[in-house]
């Protein structure tokens, strides 16, 4: 009886219990979905949480801390911890792939690199360092301008490059 003149007692009303029951069921399912979404958010499925924050290293003295998941338009930190086996002799180099930096604008680099050069496939950042203690931290602050999945190629020029996967939500 679609759209017909239905009645409940004396009341002319388009009550539809079948549809009503169905929509209650859908609503209950949606509440469960909301709860799952909140839990996933707390766990960090959209960034900032145990399933998102992670570190990896190239076994050659470079450790990268990053977020697996992030959101567009929110500042993101990438931390590079250098623990070189040999004394660095005043300089440390870091290679970052081109594709990644095209969609992630660099807001700040600490310390400021001494020089940045375009090299095949990406950019080479060189930092002045002092001291022989094998423990130097470089922090990039980036701003993702687009959403999507990214593979960042990163590493020391002479070493093996790491590929870091990041998913940026709109």
């Amino acid at each position, binding site marked *: 009886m*679609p*759209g017909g003149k239905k009645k*409940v*007692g*004396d*009341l002319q*009303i*388009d*009550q*539809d219990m079948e*549809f*009503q029951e169905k*929509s*209650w069921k*859908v*609503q209950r399912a*949606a*509440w469960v979905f909301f709860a799952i979404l909140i839990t996933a958010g707390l766990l960090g499925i959209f960034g900032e949480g145990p399933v998102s924050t992670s570190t990896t290293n190239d076994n050659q003295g470079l450790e990268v801390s990053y977020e697996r998941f992030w959101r567009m*338009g929110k500042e993101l930190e990438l931390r590079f911890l250098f623990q070189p086996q040999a004394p660095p002799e005043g300089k440390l180099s870091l290679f970052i792939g081109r594709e990644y930096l095209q969609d992630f604008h660099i807001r700040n680099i600490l310390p400021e690199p001494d020089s940045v050069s375009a090299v095949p496939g990406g950019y080479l950042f060189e930092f002045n360092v002092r001291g022989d203690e094998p423990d130097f931290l470089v922090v990039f602050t980036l701003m993702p301008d687009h959403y999507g999945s990214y593979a960042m190629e990163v590493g020391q020029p002479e070493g093996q490059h790491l590929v870091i996967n990041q998913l940026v939500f709109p």
Partner: protein
Amino acid sequence: MSTIIRAIIIYVILLIVFRLSGKRTLSHITTFDFVLLLIIGEATAQALLGEDFSLTAGLMAIVTLVSIDIGTSLLKQRSPKLEKLLDGVPLVIVENGKLIQDRADKARVDEEDVLMAARESHGLERMDQIKYAVLERSGGITVIPKGET
């Protein structure tokens, strides 16, 4: 361009979330609901405009939202099915002075809500003075008193 797309996405998301949360949500507004509504508005505004604070973006967002709303209402007028889907259906919760308990529970309405609506609209005092009470698609409760035919 992106403002228009954002506006469309937000319209759809809000429509789905509020439809799925059920009729009673934010229909009978208490002070707290009102505050909640403001916060939701604030969160929405951020997502709607991003970092674009231009007059143009604001204008485009408003025009887009209003236009989709007009479009939706036109579609609903043509298709009763869509109207049902988007607005739900009315539900009789009191028949001849008796609250239909399982329906009321599922719709998250209780006797107090019905009595309040009865007092407000007709100055009724008791349940047995109510012939019908209907939870409308708008989320409000309408009351038909006994003794009027």
